[in-house]
């Protein structure tokens, strides 16, 4: 028999209205008091739906600002949804953050009673569990010390020890593992495992996927307020990693297309392919070998004259060499691919990139100028230092 979900979220949307506070003087405030204020609308959650079954360890991951914490706060009924439904069967711990309501001026003992009350424990229940709480926190000697004299680690230990006493079916955990040392985190997870064994449901929010990977049964990936992926932990975490990577290469591409390409557009650069002596394509070159660079392009308009140039730079920024057909006085056949043959490749090991330019008469008025059009890596057997490899010899001079 299929188990009924303990949490059902359907088409949940949350819009925050951020007022533009632009009135600075009392008079302006007064004048604008009854007027409609300008507000900026921020969609923190956009049509989110999912279900969580009883006893699941459910993770919510996503980059900062993806809506994770908003979602958790709506589940905890702290924020009101703008639209959509939430159905929760069972009690929910308000375990959003550790040590809620802690007061530094009070003793650890008083804080235990206060925090336990916040978590919904009665006075009797707190008294019954007081010793257990203190024992777990390993703070027996400091019970009557004021909390302000505690280190942050001690405070977290105390807070966690109280929090796990919350008698709820569902626990909401928001980034608690970001604080505390490795030993403490381990202790946290041991507790979570035990709680899971007794059938509690845990919803765990994090942007660190390793923690999620280790413990969650199922994970939802949130991005820009939408669920991008939901399911098996491994699969979703992989998607999240891909997403973060894709985002990085997106930015690189953008720079290339926006900032590093310009020209009148009659000719458009297509690609450079590098071939070794055996005519097989390579991206890993070896110093001292012979290579052919084949430059391909498309003609958008008929041009009478075509020149091609290539400049190679090390990734550290050194201009290694630059050649073009105009300087060499070589006449190209317009429309056919260009081959640049380099004998005994002179660059030392390292990573390089190249700029490519297509132009007519003047290099300063290119058809197409492409910065960082491509990259290649060079390996070297030469025992030399620097950017280039030399053919050289030593000799005793007299």
């Amino acid at each position: 028999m299929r188990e009924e979900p303990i949490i059902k979220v359907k088409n949940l949307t949350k819009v925050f209205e951020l007022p533009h506070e632009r009135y600075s003087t009392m008079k302006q405030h007064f004048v604008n008091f009854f007027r409609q204020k300008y507000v900026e609308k921020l969609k923190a959650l956009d049509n989110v739906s999912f279900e969580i079954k009883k006893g699941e360890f459910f993770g919510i991951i996503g980059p900062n600002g993806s809506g994770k914490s908003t979602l958790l706060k709506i589940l905890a009924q702290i924020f009101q949804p703008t639209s959509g439904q939430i159905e929760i069967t069972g009690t929910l711990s308000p375990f959003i953050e550790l040590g809620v309501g802690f007061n530094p001026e009070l003793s650890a003992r008083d804080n235990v009673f206060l925090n336990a009350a916040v978590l919904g424990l009665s006075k009797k229940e707190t008294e019954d569990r007081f010793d257990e709480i203190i024992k777990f926190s390993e703070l027996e000697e400091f019970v009557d010390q004021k909390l302000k004299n505690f280190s942050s680690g001690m405070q977290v230990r105390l807070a966690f020890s109280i929090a796990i006493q919350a008698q709820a079916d569902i626990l909401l955990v928001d980034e608690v593992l970001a604080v505390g040392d490795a030993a403490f985190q381990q202790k946290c997870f041991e507790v979570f495992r035990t709680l899971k064994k007794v059938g509690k449901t845990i919803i765990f929010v994090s942007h660190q996927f390793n923690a999620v990977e280790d413990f969650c049964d199922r994970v939802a990936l949130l991005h820009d307020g939408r669920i991008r992926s939901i399911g098996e932990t491994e699969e979703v975490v992989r998607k999240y990693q891909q997403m973060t990577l894709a985002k990085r290469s997106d930015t690189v591409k953008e720079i290339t297309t926006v900032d590093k390409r310009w020209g009148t557009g009659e000719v458009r650069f297509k690609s450079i392919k590098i071939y070794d002596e055996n005519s097989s394509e390579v991206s890993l070159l070896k110093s001292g070998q012979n290579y052919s660079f084949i430059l391909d392009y498309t003609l958008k308009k008929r041009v009478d004259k075509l020149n091609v140039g290539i400049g190679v730079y090390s990734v550290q920024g050194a201009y290694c060499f630059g050649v073009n057909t105009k300087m060499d006085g070589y006449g190209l056949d317009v429309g056919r691919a260009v081959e640049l043959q380099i004998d005994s490749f002179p660059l030392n090991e390292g990573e390089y990139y190249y700029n490519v330019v297509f132009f007519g008469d003047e290099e300063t008025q290119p058809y197409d100028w492409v910065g960082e059009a491509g990259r290649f890596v060079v390996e070297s057997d030469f025992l030399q230092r620097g950017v280039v490899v030399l053919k050289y010899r030593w000799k005793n001079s007299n």
Partner: protein
Amino acid sequence: MKKTNYFNLTLQMALTDFKLKYAGSILGYVWSLVKPLLLFGVLYVVFSIFFRFGEGAKNYPVYLLLGIVMWTFFFDGTMNGMRSIVIRGDLIRKVNFPKIIIVIAAIITAFLSFLLNLIVVFVFLAFSKVDLTIYALAFIPIIIELVILVLGISLILATLYTKFKDFMHIWEVGLQVLFYATPIIYPISLVPDKFVKFMMVNPIAQIFQDARWALISRDVTTSWSAISYPKNLIILAMVLWLVLVGFFIFSKSAKNFAEEI
């Protein structure tokens, strides 16, 4: 959270605030006894010895002290209540529970000081020539009315204060006005007759005078003698109306507190 345990949360919050109020001071709780006594001393010297208000009321010192103690509760209760929601903003943003608990806890904190102050009042009563009679029992429903009034005002102010911080200043001025509009330091017998009726429509005046009637003397002017039954019931209606309006606007806004503060 289980419903039954909201009681514990309310109590813990109230006790915490009460403890914190005196944390770090040497005299501690003694301050809640000393403070009204000091205020009483000053006012007594000024108004009894210099201005001779004492001639207008029987047992003026107890009359004055009871007024001051009740006023202190009204003042602290509404002030604490008004600010409570904003002060507990951190908690509201992290835990869901009925927000009214916060306001109630703030009023309980003020009420605990009030109870301590009442001890001083009763000691004074014992030493003055006042005989406590069966009428003193009326003091209990009078206090209940005062608490309800404080709750009603606090709920309204707390809601407004989350949106407009101006209410802090507005209420300070309001309290100043009420302090002089209410017979706290002066006996009502000094007020010209034509104003007495208007003065007694004020629920605070009604409560204070009734309290004096119950504890000190049957001769004081109350809403019963100044306005007469059943017209004086309008005052009670005002208190009920205030608390109902308070509940209404507070519960309407409470669910948005977490996002607004």
